[in-house]
C-alpha cells in the first residue's frame, strides 16, 4: 500500500495538488461514515483523514463538535474505526490517516491500537493533542510498525518547534493555518504560508495546511505553496445539507483546485 508521504510527493511531482478529506468515524452511523469516506476518495480526496469522536475535543469548532457528539450518541465505539478502515480498504487504495485525541488511544493501549490500525489497512495517525515532546513511545512504536505520524506546527511555534515537528513527523507536517479551532474562515491567514515557509527552511517533509480551509479558491491557493489542503468542516456541512450527494458535490468542487 502506498504511504501518505509517497502519494503526496508523487502527485506534486506531476504538478497535482492534494486534497486531504476529514470525516468523523461513526457520523452519523458507522456504515454511513464508511460510505461517505469511500465517496470522498472516489471523487477526488487524495488522502483520507478519519476523525475519532472524543468527548473533549478542544481543537474542534462547533460543526465538528456537533458531528462527533452525534456519532457518540449514536453508539460509536473505538473498535468501529477498524471496521471503517477495512471497509474503505476493500474498495480503495487511498492512503488513510486516523485523527485522534490522545486519550482514546491511551485507553485502548497504544501498541495494540497501532497494530490493529495497521492490520486494518491505515497508514498512520494524526495526533492533535500529542506534541513530539510527549511522544517518545508513539514514535518508537510507529517506527517499528512502519506507520506514519503527523504532528502539528502552528503560527505560534518557534523555529525550534517547527523543526521538531518536521523531524518527528512522517507523512507530512500539519501546518495549522490560523490561531484558532477548526471551522471555516472567509480569508485564509497569511500565517498559513509563513508556517509552511518555516517548515521548508528546515525540512523537505511535505507540509499540508489545515484549519479553516473550505473553498475552492483556498484549496487552490494552499496547493500553490504547500503539499496539500486539509478540509473537514466544509465536508460535514455539505453532508448535513445534502447527504452523500451533497458531500460528493463539495469534494468534486474542491478537487478542481488540484490541477
Amino acid at each position, binding site marked *: 500500500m502506498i504511504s501518505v508521504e509517497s502519494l503526496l510527493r508523487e502527485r506534486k511531482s506531476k504538478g497535482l495538488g492534494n486534497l486531504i478529506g476529514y470525516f468523523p468515524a461513526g457520523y452519523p452511523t458507522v456504515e454511513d461514515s464508511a460510505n461517505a469516506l469511500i465517496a470522498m476518495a472516489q471523487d477526488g480526496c487524495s488522502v483520507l483523514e478519519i476523525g475519532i469522536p472524543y468527548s473533549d475535543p*478542544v*481543537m474542534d469548532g462547533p460543526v465538528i463538535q456537533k458531528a462527533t*457528539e452525534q456519532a457518540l450518541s449514536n453508539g460509536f465505539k*473505538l473498535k468501529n474505526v477498524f471496521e471503517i478502515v477495512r471497509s474503505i480498504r476493500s474498495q480503495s487504495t487511498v492512503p488513510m490517516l486516523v485523527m485522534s485525541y490522545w486519550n482514546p488511544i*491511551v*485507553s485502548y493501549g497504544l501498541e495494540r491500537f497501532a497494530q490493529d490500525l495497521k492490520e486494518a489497512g491505515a497508514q498512520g495517525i494524526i495526533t*492533535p493533542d500529542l*506534541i513530539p515532546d510527549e511522544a517518545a513511545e508513539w514514535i518508537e512504536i510507529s517506527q517499528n510498525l512502519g506507520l506514519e505520524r503527523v504532528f502539528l506546527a502552528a503560527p505560534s511555534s518557534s523555529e525550534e518547534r517547527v523543526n521538531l515537528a518536521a523531524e518527528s513527523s512522517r507523512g507530512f507536517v500539519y501546518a495549522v493555518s490560523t490561531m484558532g479551532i477548526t471551522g471555516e474562515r472567509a480569508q485564509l491567514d497569511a500565517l498559513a504560508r509563513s508556517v509552511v515557509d518555516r517548515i521548508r527552511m528546515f525540512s523537505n517533509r511535505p507540509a499540508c495546511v489545515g484549519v479553516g480551509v473550505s473553498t475552492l479558491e483556498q484549496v487552490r491557493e494552499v496547493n500553490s505553496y504547500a503539499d496539500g489542503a486539509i478540509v473537514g468542516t466544509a465536508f460535514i456541512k455539505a453532508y448535513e445539507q445534502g447527504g452523500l450527494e451533497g458531500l460528493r458535490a463539495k469534494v468534486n468542487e474542491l478537487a478542481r483546485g488540484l490541477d
Partner: protein
Amino acid sequence: MSEKLSEGIGPYFGAYGGRFVPEPLIRALDELEATYLAARKDPKFQSELANLHKQYTGRPSIITEASRFAAAVGDLRVFLKREDLNHTGSHKINNVMGQALLTKIMGKTRIIAETGAGQHGVASATAAAYFGLECVVYMGEVDTQRQALNVARMKLLGAEVVPVTTGSRTLKDAINEAMRDWVANVDTTHYLLGTVAGPHPFPTMVRDFHGIIGNEARAQMLELTGSLPAAVAACVGGGSNAIGIFHGFIDDPTVQLWGFEAAGDGIDTLMHAATLSKGTPGVLHGAKTYVLQDEDGQTLESHSISAGLDYPGVGPEHAFLKDLGRANYLGIKDSEAMEAMRLLSRTEGIIPAIETAHALAGISHLSSVLPKGSSVVVNLSGRGDKDMETAGRYFGLL
C-alpha cells in the same frame, strides 16, 4: 525528581502531568512557565503578592478551633483554616491574585477563566476589576443555574459570563471552551485556570500560589498547640485547596494527608465525581492523571451536589500522591456532605460551602483511624452563601 516532595516543580509528578495540548498553545505555556519561574524567585514579585494578600485578600487567614463540632463527630480536636474569610469567600483568590500579577507582567490585557461553583469565576472577575483587565468566564449551563447568585456577582463585577452548552454542561466543558478561546486569542489573553489540573506549568504554579494556606497553617498550629497536627484534611475537586494545605506538611511524615472527593449518590453508583477512588490513569485537559472514563477513553459525566467538585479529572500531583500512598483519598456522599454543612452551621455558627462540607464530613471517618484526642486541620475552603439556594431546597427551608 527532587528528593523532597515539597520541591517537585513538574512537568511530571511521577508518571502524571506533562503537556497534552495542541501545538498552538505551547508558546503560551512556555511563556507562562518562564514568567512564573522567574517570578517564583523574584523577591519583588513575592513581596508585591504578599502585600496584595495582606491589603486586599485579607491574609493571613485565621485558624478557629471547632470544639462543639468536634465533640459531635468524635474524639478529635478540629481546627478550621478559615479560607472562607478571604475576600470573595474562598481560597480561589490566592491563585487568582498570583496569576493576575503574572498577566500584567506578560503584558496581556484579557483574562479568561472556567468556573464550576462560580467561586473561581468571582475571584477572577474581582482581580480583573482590581487590575483593570477584561474578563470572560466560561461556566457550564447547568452550573449557571445552580450557582445563579455567583453569576450575578461576576456580572456586577464587570465580567462577561458565557454559559457553555456542550457536553455535560458543567466544569469540564467550561474548561474545553476556555481552551478554545485561548487558542484563538493567546496573544492578548491569559487563561487563568482555577485549579491544579491542566498542562504544565498550571499544576505547579497554582499549587505554589495556594501553598500559603499550608505554610500559614503549619506555623499557626505549632503556635497554638505546640505540635504538628496528626492529619490535614481538605475537599478535592481539581485539588487546589487540598494541595495548597497539603504542601505545608508534605515533608512531615507524621502528618497524614486526607483528601475527600465527591461520591455523589455513592461510589458504587454511576452518579459520583470520585476520580481518585474510581477513575483510571488517562489524559484529560492537557495532563496525564486519573480520569473518570469509559472503556474507550471517553470522559464520563461526573455528578455531585457541589458544582465545585463536579469534575471527572483531578490534578496530576494528587494522582502521584495517591499512588505513592503519601495522601489518602475517600469519597463523601452528597447526603453526608449536606449533613456536615448543617452540623458546622449549628455547632460553630459557620456556614461552609458544600464543597468544603465534604472535608468536614470526612472528619468522622478520621476519628476512627486517628488516636483519640488527635488534632486535625481542615481547610475551610469557602463559605456557603453561594449555596443557600441548594441548601434551602435540600433542607426544605425556602
